[in-house]
C-alpha cells in the first residue's frame, strides 16, 4: 500500500448542537486524485476546513504526511496548497500582485510567481486587476496561489463550481496535469459526479457527515448494481409507489422513471406493483448503473 498523505481517525465535529461529521475515517494515498463526493451540506467543506486547520480537530484525529497539526502546523501547511470554495482574491490588486502578497508570506523566490502563472496559463492576464477576471480566471489565480510553495498536496474544494463548460474543461486538464506531470496528490471535493468520474482515481462518498464509501473509483462500478428505466403513463403515481417500496428515484421525466436496483428479480416485482396500481407500463430496460445512480443509491438524497 502506498503512503497515506491524509489520514483521519474517527473524526467528529459539531457546530453547537449540530453534528457535522461523525466518525470520519479518510485515507488518501500519495499520488492519487482523491474525489470527495457528497451532496450539498454533507460535510465536505467542514472536512476540508479541518484538514487545513481552519477548524481545529481534537488531537490525534487527523494526520497529514503522517504528522499532526499540534506540533507541525507550519511544516504541514508548507506542503499543502488549498483552494476553498469561492476564490479568495484581493480584487483591487492585479493577478501578479495577489501572488506577490502570498509570496511575501511564504518566502519563495520571485521567479516562482512567473512559474505558477505559466502553470495555470495566466501570464497574459497577470497584470490585469483581479476585479476584471472571469470566475474561471479567478479560480486559476487561486490555484496559482496554492501552488506557490510547490506543495505536495493540493486540497481543492469544488474547483469547478460556477465555471462555464470551457472553464470546467480547463480546470480539469489543469488538475490532471498537476497530478501526472507535477506529481501532486490532489484531494478534490465536488458534488458534480461526472467531474469526479472523469478525474478521480480514488473516491470517498460522504453524506450526513458519515463516510458511505471509500476506495478505488472502479470499486464503485464493480458492485452489481443496475439501473432500471421504466416507461409508463402515470409518472407521479408510479414514483410514489416506488418510494413506498423504499426505492430511490434517480431520474424522472414526463414519460419515464429511472432507479437503481440490485437484481433483475426486482424488475418483475416493480412491474407487478405498478400494474396492480393500474399504471400502464410500456417498457422496462436495465443497464449497468452510472456513477450518478450509485451515488444516489448510497446517499438516498433525491427523494427525501
Amino acid at each position, binding site marked *: 500500500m502506498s503512503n497515506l498523505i491524509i489520514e483521519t481517525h474517527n473524526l467528529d465535529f459539531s457546530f453547537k448542537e449540530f453534528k457535522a461529521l461523525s466518525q470520519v475515517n479518510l485515507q488518501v494515498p500519495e499520488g492519487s486524485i482523491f474525489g470527495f463526493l457528497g451532496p450539498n451540506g454533507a460535510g465536505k467543506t467542514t472536512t476540508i*476546513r479541518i484538514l*487545513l*486547520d*481552519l*477548524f*481545529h480537530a481534537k488531537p490525534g484525529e487527523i494526520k497529514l504526511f503522517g504528522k499532526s497539526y499540534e506540533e507541525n*502546523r*507550519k*511544516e*504541514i*501547511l*508548507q506542503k*499543502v496548497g*488549498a483552494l*476553498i470554495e*469561492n*476564490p*479568495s*482574491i*484581493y*480584487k*483591487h*490588486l492585479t493577478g501578479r*500582485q495577489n501572488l*506577490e*502578497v*502570498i509570496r*511575501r*508570506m*511564504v*518566502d519563495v523566490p520571485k521567479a516562482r510567481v512567473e512559474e505558477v502563472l505559466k502553470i495555470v496559463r495566466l501570464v497574459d492576464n497577470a497584470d490585469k486587476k483581479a476585479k476584471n477576471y472571469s470566475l474561471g480566471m479567478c479560480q486559476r489565480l487561486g490555484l496559482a*496561489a496554492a501552488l506557490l*510553495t510547490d506543495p505536495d498536496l493540493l486540497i481543492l474544494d469544488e474547483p469547478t463550481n460556477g465555471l462555464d463548460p470551457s472553464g470546467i474543461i480547463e480546470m480539469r486538464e489543469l488538475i490532471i496535469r498537476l497530478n501526472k506531470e507535477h506529481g501532486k496528490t490532489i484531494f478534490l471535493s465536488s458534488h458534480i459526479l461526472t467531474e469526479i468520474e472523469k478525474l478521480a482515481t480514488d473516491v470517498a462518498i460522504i453524506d450526513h457527515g458519515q463516510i458511505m464509501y471509500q476506495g478505488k473509483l472502479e470499486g464503485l462500478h464493480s458492485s452489481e448494481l443496475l439501473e432500471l428505466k421504466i416507461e409508463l403513463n402515470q409518472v407521479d403515481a408510479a414514483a410514489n409507489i416506488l418510494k413506498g417500496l423504499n426505492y430511490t428515484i434517480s431520474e424522472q421525466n414526463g414519460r419515464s422513471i429511472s432507479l437503481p436496483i440490485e437484481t433483475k428479480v426486482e424488475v418483475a416485482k416493480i412491474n407487478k406493483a405498478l400494474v396492480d396500481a393500474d399504471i400502464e407500463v410500456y417498457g422496462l430496460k436495465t443497464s449497468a448503473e452510472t456513477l450518478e445512480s450509485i451515488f444516489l443509491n448510497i446517499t438516498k438524497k433525491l427523494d427525501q
Partner: protein
Amino acid sequence: MNTVIALKRGISAEIFKFRSTFVFWLILLAPAFIPTINLIVFLRRGEAILARSGTAWGNLMQFSNGPSNFLFPFFVFIVALYVNNIEWSSNTWKLIYTQPLHRLNIFFSKLLVFFGMLFFSLMLYGALIIAVGKIVNLANPTLGFGESFDFVILFGRCFRMFLATLGFASIQFYISQRSKNLILPLGIGIGGIISFMIVVQGWEYAAYHPYGYHILAGGLYEGARTILLENMQPIYLSLGLMIVMVGIGAYDALRKRII
C-alpha cells in the same frame, strides 16, 4: 529569530496588499486636513488671532489640538475597520490562515501594521503642523513663527496621543476583526466618543472611560520637555487596556474557526 523573520514577512505582505487602496490615501491625506485649514486661517487671519494673546506657535498648537482630539478617533475607527474589512470583503481570511505561518504571526502582523498606520499618521500630522508654521513665516514673518519652538515637545505630544489611543484602537481592531459588519464597530466607536463627552461633564470615573484617554492625556503645547512625562495615568490606562484587548484578540486568533 525565526519568529521575527516570519513577522517581518507577514508585515511585508500586509503592507503590500494596501497599495492603491482607500486606506493608503487616507493615512497620507487625513493628517493634512487640519494643518491645511490652519494654513489658510493663519495666512488670512493670522494677525487678528495673534492680537488676542499667546505666541504664534502656541496659537497654532491650540488651533490644531481641539479638532484633532475630536477627529482622530474617527480616523482610528475607519483604519481599524479597513485593515480587517479588506479580508472580509475579499474572502481572504481562509487564504491567509492556510499559509505556513503561525496564527499569532498573522494576527500580530495585521495589528502592528494597524498601529504603524496610526503612528505614521500622527507623526506626519506633527510634521505638517511644523510645515504650516514655516510656510506662514515665509509669507508673513511678523507673526512670530520665526521664534524658536521646541519641536520635541510637539512630536512628544503626538507620541503621547498615539499611546493614549492604543486602548480604544485595540477595542476597535478586535471588533472589526470579529465581525464582518461595518456598522457595528463604527456604532460602538461613536457611542464610545459620545458617552465620554457626556460622562466627562461631571462623573467622577470619567477618567477611566477608554474613549477619552487621548483627550485627557493632551493639554497645552507649552512648557518644558518634562511635561511629556506628567499626567501619565491616561496613558497607562490606555496601554493596560491595549494589553488586555490584544491578549483577548490573540487568544481568539488561536482558537477561532476561520470561515
